[in-house]
């Protein structure tokens, strides 16, 4: 029995989760040019919203709960921009100040989740039936297939949206140069608000799906954020397609590293990859 199919499947599953974090992160970074660390905790917000809904209302449909979870994460992301980041931008705060503010927001939201729901590990999978499929010699669950499909779908939708709609053009204009976009008549604050809304929604979706796959705990955000950021930087910071490529590279490097090197090096491989790219190709695979 070859273990190759299973390892490829494992890599793709990991890549899917990293991509869901990296896409939103790159979307926000592309437009604002600052590292929004609070992005990671949006995954926890999404996951815990679904946890709350499915445990409080036993009859609630999982898909409906997930949709509400995505909306809540999106709204909180949008609210953060509205309340915190916008005020700082008005004062022409540096990107470093914004980064620190986002770290503060991350900590506050994570602590709030821990206070409301305790630090206990929870699984969402008890509410969804888990079916294991055999695909070309690899075991893979329904949730994991949904994770991979979601990553592809989100990427495709976002790509089409950015390329074909008027709003997408505005987003790209803001990403190129916010100042010029504003002079050209783009309502940049509104566009940025929407970017946070969409980016956080994707992170929330990621958190929910990860919750169904492995489980949720308040501290899940940082781990996910780190891997998402590595994928984002390796792929090309600020680039949506880069996020997908970076996630794939990271997923494969980690999982094949466990096989060929040793599991202890899993995190070292991830961060080693990051350092290699920072030194030799700092703009990532796709230079935006």
């Amino acid at each position, binding site marked *: 029995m070859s273990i190759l199919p*299973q390892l490829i499947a494992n890599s793709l599953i990991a890549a899917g*989760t990293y991509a869901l974090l990296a896409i939103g992160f790159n979307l926000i970074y592309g437009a604002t040019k600052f590292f929004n660390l609070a992005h990671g905790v949006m995954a926890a917000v999404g996951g815990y919203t679904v946890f709350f809904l499915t445990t409080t209302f036993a009859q609630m449909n999982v898909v409906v709960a997930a949709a509400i979870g995505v909306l809540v994460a999106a709204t909180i992301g949008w609210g953060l921009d509205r309340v915190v980041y916008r005020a700082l931008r008005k004062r022409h705060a540096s990107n470093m100040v914004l980064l620190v503010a986002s770290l503060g927001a991350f900590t506050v939201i994570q602590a709030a989740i821990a206070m409301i729901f305790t*630090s206990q590990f929870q699984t969402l999978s008890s509410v969804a039936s888990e079916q*294991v499929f055999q695909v070309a010699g690899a075991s893979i669950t329904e949730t994991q297939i949904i994770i991979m499909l979601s990553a592809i779908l989100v990427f495709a939708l976002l790509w089409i949206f950015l390329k074909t709609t008027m709003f997408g053009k505005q987003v790209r204009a803001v990403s190129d140069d916010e100042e010029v976009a504003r002079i050209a008549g783009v309502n940049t604050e509104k566009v940025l608000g929407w970017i946070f809304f969409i980016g956080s929604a994707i992170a929330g979706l990621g958190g929910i799906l990860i919750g169904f796959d492995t489980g949720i705990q308040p*501290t899940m955000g940082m781990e996910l954020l780190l891997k998402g950021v590595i994928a984002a930087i390796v792929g090309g910071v600020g680039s949506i397609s880069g996020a997908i490529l970076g996630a794939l590279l990271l997923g494969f490097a980690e999982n094949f590293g*466990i096989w060929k090197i040793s*599991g202890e090096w899993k995190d070292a491989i991830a961060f080693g990859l990051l350092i290699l790219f920072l030194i030799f190709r700092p703009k990532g695979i796709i230079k935006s």
Partner: protein
Amino acid sequence: MSKTQKIVWWTLGAVVVVGLVAWGVFRNSGSSNVIKIGSIEPLTGGAAVYGQPVQDTIELAVAQINAAGGINGKQVQMIYEDGKCDGTDGANAAQKLVNVDGVQAIIGGFCSGETIPAVPIAAAGKVVMLSPGASSPALTGISPYFFRDYPSDAFQATVMGNIAYNQKGWRTVAVMEEQTDYGTALTNAFSKSFEGYGGKVIVQAFPSATADLRSFLTTLKAQQPDALFIVTQTPAVSDDLFDQLIQLGWRPPLLIGDIISGDPAIIQKYSSQLEGAIGATFLPNASDTAYEAFINAYQAKYGGVPPYQNYMACVFDAVNLLAAGIKQVGYDGAALATWSRTVSNWPGASGNITIGSDGDRAGGDVPIVIHGAQVVPYVAQ
């Protein structure tokens, strides 16, 4: 703001500061009627599931001691610090308890990771540490100021190595090791025992917070070991691991660390996967009257039986054992450290406690097997 207003505000400020300082001084000087004991356990993070019942158990024991008139007429007051199962936090917690609060004794840490770096700090301050849960062999003989009433992991690993090789006839055992002090120590002790008989151990170690364990399991499965030894410490990781074992469709005979066998929730949830799993644990005698009294008192106070009962019985004993020591030699770290090595057959809820010259609890683990989602004593066929 006018000048008068300024003066009023400054005066008010000064009064508040002087008042606070005076209150602090008064509080400290008034503390001669109180025995302040420090405690370190994980109160946040993945291991907080242990910290909460530990705190509850300590509170229960302290309440009983205080209701009975305290120790030599003094009331006991606990100061809890969050060690997060982590070395840095454990060291910080010990620093605060030793240097700021000035305690003479610390109950904890609960995890080996938060305990190991805390011991030298306590020892430097001549503060005695009594751990009810840290079981890493690295703590054996670490300092005259350290002792524990939970046995070292070296015992359970030796028991399991023997059964695996000599009774089950396994020759290759794969290990899934969570990289914590507990996990590494247990893995090393097992490898030493099993390889000593002539067996082969394949280890896959993974960082503690890892949720995606699929490829670790995939590579181990491909090597077709006779059995899989699961050494996890964080309940979240155990949960993910069993879930992903099922997804992979791999059902090897299992060996389990005492944290899994002490976790009823995991055993219940994965009862079919765990059926027949062999472990070795420290198991208090359930029909012992002191043990029953502890369980009943806990139930009466918190409305449910304590989780991780083998650990909680040791937590409960740690408080009472320390109280007995303070009663005997006074509240002084150095005197308590010397006294700790004289503890012999002290009757507690977890059984009779004897502390060896290396600070370890003498006696140890018995082999167990999971059967019908219950932990039962292992009987050799």
